């Protein structure tokens, strides 16, 4: 029974085909001679080739097809009574004289088909007889093909409604009965194949078996094509009987395939109306059946149906589709004890997708699904399976995608509870998904409560969760994650200052728990967010009256102070410094001198205590200078203190060029080019002179250490400062001083024996002077005294 090898099987197939051809040849001769007796004899011999047990289903099919083609010719012959002279009724008996059952039944089916066509007997009687007689073939493969032949020759002859074979009384039910019976028997044969053969080739056999499944499934297709199968009949007869067979066959492969078939071949409307019946079958299937795929397909079909036909939605509600599906999934999970968590979650993902598509307005459904998941996951260790994790992520992402509004997700009480069951890693992935969704949809989170929930959801990003070793994290990933959080903070916004402040406080509380590594990313957006609020309050200043207003810039600044302090304490002094300066500026705009002063103080303290790197110092001092220059809130005293400090630090920088540049930058602290800005020309000049001294010293140092004095860039830069103040009408800056400086530079250059033109900066500065001279007018006059 078991083929020794492929070669043998090919050989047997070749022999079989040769046999078919041989007998078919004589059959043709008999047909040409209109010799019925011979035709029957040779056709039976030909069909006897199909009695082989040696071929795999695949090869058997090939052989079957050969015979099938020949039978078509025979059928033509049978049809024409004038050729053989025997009435169809007699012919129907005559073919049954054949001794071997398989050829006998093939011939009977062939004649039966002609018999129905002749309408000498009611189609249903003939069909009933044929399907009964086929019981004699109990060999799975041979039986399947025989019945498949029966189904093939009869499918256009069913006594369906509107068919020419329809009888007087309700014959549709006979048609249905016939197909159902054939289906049932075929399925039984098909299932029986699994029990054949020893274990070692079981797998191969299973594969072969699955190749035959379409023979069985075709019957369902035929059923779906019968006009007379209306909803009523489907509900009362077809589905219960099909399901009965599916459940009773207790075979994994068959159950899976047939459930799939049912879902695919019958109309969605029927599924909707018979949902309960269909779903009730699911928990009764074998525990190994992949029900999740089946149900997923069902749900997908139903949701497509709902999506394409909006007017059927009431039906969905009427049949309580969601509740039924939900219940069924629960029962299936209960019934299939061994179902991996993956399967269960996949089911819920499908259900969720279903409800999102069909009942987008029913958030409670979504929450219900998530709740079911929580129930499923609770009491179990965190999910290890990668794919299961992915499914959970899909589960959680679905509502986000659907609603384009993460806020909706925030109202789902079970959402965070599902997340709890994820590993930290996944939690993070999920958190990023959430954030991305918010970003993509530009969702504004506008209440402190929501902020609270949201941060609960993304807590994987906000703080170190236990069990995560920081070393394991990839630096880049970490940065990426934290950047996301930073972006998220910008999405939190409410027009109402009070609520906004609450939100800020909430966020603060959250990010403060995040540990030093995160503050770098999270503090700046929060600070800016707060500063925005400050500006907003300032804008409304007139509108809000009364002392009891809880939200005042002062309060916010206090808060900011705390926030930045946290940052400065964890070795991000430079960043803290910048933020302090930002705050100082904001305080300045709010006219809060003391606050601004305090921020500045903090900045200076940081500068002194924390910023040691010389480069960082340079940057910091320039920032300080720049900020300070613009602050107008300070009184003379405070300002003096601060400018003094700034210039002092400038001069103490390590490298001479840095010193020089910082010092000349300081000059701006004394000359604010505003209407009522400070214009202390003397101190400006002092600064510039000091800068020149330093530049000189730098020059000398260079010539001592390297033998050449190097470029005169610093001088040129200072020259430009001179020109600036000159143009700004600083009385202390005279054309003579400029003249002197130009000459000094030219002289230096000559001593270095480089041409004036070789320094582009200097030469363009000179060109500028020339240009201003030639421009004429006030400026031209000013410049007139400078000779270059």
């Amino acid at each position: 029974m078991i083929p020794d090898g492929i070669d043998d099987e090919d050989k047997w197939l070749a022999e079989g085909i040769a046999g078919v051809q041989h007998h078919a040849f004589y059959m043709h001769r008999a047909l040409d001679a209109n010799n019925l007796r011979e035709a029957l004899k040779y056709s039976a011999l030909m069909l006897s080739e199909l009695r082989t047990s040696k071929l795999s289903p695949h090869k058997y099919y090939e052989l079957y097809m050969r015979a099938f083609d020949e039978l078509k010719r025979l059928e033509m012959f049978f049809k024409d009574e004038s050729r053989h002279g025997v009435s169809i009724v007699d012919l129907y008996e005559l073919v049954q004289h054949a001794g071997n059952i398989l050829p006998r039944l093939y011939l009977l089916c062939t004649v039966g088909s002609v018999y129905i066509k002749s309408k000498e007997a009611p189609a249903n009687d003939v069909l009933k007889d044929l399907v009964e007689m086929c019981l004699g073939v109990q060999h799975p493969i041979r039986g399947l093909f025989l019945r498949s032949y029966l189904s093939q020759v009869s499918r256009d002859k069913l006594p369906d409604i509107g068919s020419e074979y329809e009888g007087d009384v309700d014959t549709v039910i006979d048609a249905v009965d016939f197909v159902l019976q054939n289906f049932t028997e075929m399925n039984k044969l098909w299932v029986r194949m699994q029990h054949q053969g020893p274990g070692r080739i079981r797998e191969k056999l299973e594969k072969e078996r699955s190749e035959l499944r379409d023979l069985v499934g075709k019957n369902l297709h035929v059923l779906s094509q019968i006009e007379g199968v209306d909803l009523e009949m489907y509900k009362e007869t077809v589905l219960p009987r099909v399901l009965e067979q599916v459940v009773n066959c207790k075979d994994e492969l068959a159950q899976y395939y047939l459930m799939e078939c049912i879902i695919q071949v019958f109309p969605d409307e029927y599924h909707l109306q018979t949902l309960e019946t269909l779903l009730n079958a699911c928990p009764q299937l074998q525990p190994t059946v992949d029900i999740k795929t089946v149900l997923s397909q069902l749900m997908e079909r139903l949701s497509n149906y709902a999506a394409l036909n909006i007017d059927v939605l009431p039906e969905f509600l009427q049949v309580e589709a969601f509740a039924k599906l939900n219940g069924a999934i629960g029962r299936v999970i209960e019934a299939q004890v061994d179902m991996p968590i993956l399967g269960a979650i996949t089911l819920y993902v499908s259900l969720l997708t279903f409800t999102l598509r069909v009942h987008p307005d029913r958030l409670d459904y979504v929450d219900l699904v998530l709740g079911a998941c929580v129930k499923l996951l609770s009491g179990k260790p965190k999910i290890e399976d990668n794919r299961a994790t992915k499914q959970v992520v899909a589960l959680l992402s679905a509502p986000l995608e659907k609603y384009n509004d993460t806020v909706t997700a925030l109202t789902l009480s079970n959402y965070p509870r599902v997340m709890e069951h994820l590993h930290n890693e996944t939690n993070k992935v999920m958190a990023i998904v959430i954030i991305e969704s918010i970003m993509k949809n530009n969702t504004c989170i506008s209440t402190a409560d929501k902020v609270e929930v949201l941060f609960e959801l993304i807590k994987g990003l906000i703080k170190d969760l236990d069990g995560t070793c920081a070393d394991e994290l990839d630096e880049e990933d970490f940065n990426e994650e934290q950047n996301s959080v930073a972006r998220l903070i910008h999405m939190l916004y409410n027009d109402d200052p009070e609520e906004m402040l609450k939100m800020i406080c909430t966020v603060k509380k959250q990010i403060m728990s995040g540990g030093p590594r995160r503050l770098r990313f999270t503090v700046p957006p929060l600070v800016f967010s707060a500063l925005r609020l400050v500006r907003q309050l300032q804008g409304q200043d007139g509108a809000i009256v009364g002392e009891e207003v809880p939200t005042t810039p002062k309060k916010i600044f206090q808060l900011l102070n705390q926030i930045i302090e946290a940052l400065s304490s964890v070795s991000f002094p430079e960043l803290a410094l910048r933020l302090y300066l930002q705050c100082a500026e904001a305080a300045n705009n709010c006219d809060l001198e003391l606050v601004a002063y305090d921020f500045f103080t903090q900045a200076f303290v940081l500068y002194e205590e924390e910023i040691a790197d010389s480069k960082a110092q340079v940057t910091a001092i320039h920032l300080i200078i720049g900020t300070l220059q613009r602050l107008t809130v300070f009184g003379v005293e405070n300002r003096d203190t601060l400018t003094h400090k700034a210039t002092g630090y400038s001069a103490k920088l390590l490298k001479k060029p840095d010193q020089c540049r910082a010092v000349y930058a300081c000059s701006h602290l004394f000359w604010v080019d505003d209407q009522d800005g400070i214009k202390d020309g003397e101190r400006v000049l002092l600064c510039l002179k000091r800068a020149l001294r330093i530049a000189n010293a730098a020059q000398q140092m260079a010539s001592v250490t390297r033998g050449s004095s190097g470029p005169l860039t610093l001088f040129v830069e200072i020259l430009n400062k001179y020109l600036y103040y000159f143009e700004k009408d600083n009385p202390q800056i005279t054309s003579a001083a400029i003249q002197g400086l130009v000459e000094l530079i030219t002289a230096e250059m000559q001593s270095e024996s480089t041409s004036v033109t070789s320094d582009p900066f200097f030469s363009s500065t000179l060109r500028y002077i020339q240009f201003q001279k030639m421009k004429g007018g006030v400026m031209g006059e000013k410049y007139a005294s400078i000779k270059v």
Partner: protein
Amino acid sequence: MNFLKGAFWQPCNITILFSDGRTRKQVPLKKENGQTAMVPLFQSQENIAGEVVIEPVQGKKLDHIGVKIELLGQIELYFDRGNFYDFTSLVRELDVPGELYEKKTYPFEFSSVEMPHESYNGVNIRLRYILKVTISRNFISNIAESQDFVVRNYTPPPSINNSIKMEVGIEDCLHIEFEYSKSKYHLKDVILGKIYFLLVRIKLKNMELEIRRRESTGSGPNTYVETETLAKFELMDGTPVRGESIPIRLFLSPYELTPTYRNINNKFSVKYYLNLVMVDEEDRRYFKQQEITVYRLLES
């Protein structure tokens, strides 16, 4: 040679003609030499009439001491060759002793002849009917000529015709229940029925229904029994499982059956059996045999 030829030389031609010979149904009959001839068909209680034509060879005189025609029903046992038992013997004298010079025709008639047994050609036995014309002569051997005819008797459908229903099995191995719709079948009948598998623990390969004819001849220690399988009809292909029900539909017309004959003249019986045979994958056979009665239906 001439001398020998002379000794066996038939001095006349004898022809037996039936009066309704043109219209009477003819059926094939296998003769001793193996050839088949068409002979007239009669049934019991029919009149058998016709004429005998005797035509002496041209110009010869035929002396005889009487001419008679006999209707004989004979049972011939092959293992007891030459031994005929005449169960029916009717004689009509056609002519008194005398001389025949020319062709002479004698009409004859046997009316309402009792022919209770049917013609039968079996393995060990033959039952036949003949008309035999004998021209008796003095001193030299009689001249005889015979003509076969076939007798078939028809019976109306039996008033009681129960189904055959039975549950059989091998303990813990195979249990089946089978049913044949009737116990009595006419020759063109159909056997309908089904086999229901109650328990199947063996791997069956196929199942057949055989029609067997059991011919027993003689009696006592000299009983000879011959069994022939006339039909092997495959009912099932493959291995059934518990709960399967396999239909039976076997048309009897293609097979050459005779009615069941029970103890014909104390010489022989012919009985028919249905034998249900199941074959397993090791080619072991399991079977159950049931007698059926076959009769020749009187067509109404």
